[in-house]
């Protein structure tokens, strides 16, 4: 893509956008990805569509928390703006922006809730939410498994998910062995 020019005001609005999204990402930063797409790709044209998608899929394939996909978006915006230094700046602004407000809130509230852990309302909250958040994990697994639809030709993927579920659930095999096996199966084109 053609190089883009970002002035100080543009960098500020990039930071402001991620700061504002921080408090909105309940249930994972990925839930705000559609709005990042609207801002970066459609409104500002700082990123191309393939760059946006690649930022998410590379971060998914890499180790570490999923939120790092925002760092990659900032990195790519900065690269489009000219140099490795602007890429570093973009990375800092996006990752810092998405983490800072929510982290402050979480820090203060976790201190408070730990001090007040015997309060009836605090205990009710934690106990009442427990079934929901456990179900959420299983739902996430289900959604990832069926991302390509329910067509029967997807059975190899389902088989891999089922086996890895069983192995992780019932054994203590190291997770990296499983991921390596999955990578090999995919490399050979069997999954």
């Amino acid at each position, binding site marked *: 893509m053609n190089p883009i020019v970002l002035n100080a005001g543009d960098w500020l609005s990039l930071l402001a956008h991620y700061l504002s999204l921080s408090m909105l990402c309940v*249930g994972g930063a990925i839930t705000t990805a559609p709005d990042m797409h609207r801002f970066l790709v459609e409104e500002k044209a700082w990123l191309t569509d393939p760059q946006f998608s690649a930022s998410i899929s590379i971060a998914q394939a*890499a180790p570490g928390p999923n939120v790092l996909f925002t760092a*990659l978006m900032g990195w790519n915006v900065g690269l489009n703006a000219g140099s490795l230094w602007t890429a570093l700046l973009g990375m800092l602004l996006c990752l810092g922006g998405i983490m800072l407000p929510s982290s402050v809130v979480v820090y203060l509230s976790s201190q408070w809730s730990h001090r007040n852990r015997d309060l009836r309302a605090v205990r*009710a909250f*934690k*106990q009442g939410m427990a079934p929901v958040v456990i179900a959420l994990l299983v739902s996430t697994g289900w959604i990832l498994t069926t991302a390509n639809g329910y067509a029967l030709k997807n059975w190899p993927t389902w088989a891999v998910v089922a086996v890895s579920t069983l192995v992780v659930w019932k054994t203590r095999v190291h*997770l990296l062995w499983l991921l390596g096996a999955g990578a090999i199966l995919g490399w050979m084109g069997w*999954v």
Partner: protein
Amino acid sequence: MSSTLDAAADAPPLARPRSRTDLFVSFTLLALQGFGGVLAVVQRELVENKRWMTREEFVEEWAVAQIMPGPNVVNLSIALGSRYFGFTGALAAVAGLIACPLLVLLALALIYARFSSDAHMVGAVRGMGAVAAGLITATGLKLMPALRKNVLGVPLSAALGAASFVAIAWFKLPLLWVLLAVGGCGCVLAFRKLA
């Protein structure tokens, strides 16, 4: 080394991180193993291997991290780090979670730019994705026994869990609504039962 030698005499006592460095290194190591999300590794490392918290505590902390705004594994590490060492503990845990994976990610992005059209590479990433889906599912299954000690009781917990699963996996309803509606019901019911 343990602080919670209580009535649960059948379970061995919980451990705790020795220092901020221990926190930083532990979170770095588990983040680097977390392909396709760190949660499965956090559960295995902190609950099963290091025994810093029980399964029940983990579910509770995870519930808070989930409902609070922000990336949820980051939230979990803030809650954990600050519990042991206050503000600097939270910083150490989050820094461990972010720093090394960020460097790995940048290296990968540079490599990926060269190989992104290679069918083997795309296949390998897809295969790891399928395994990661299994890791998440299994983490959910492993945490289910924690509900036996829940004040709601097993039948109610199962009903709330099933409702959440149907709403999210089947009807693809927005997460926030499900957390507020189903989670809200759960909280009200738990509040009444705790009386």
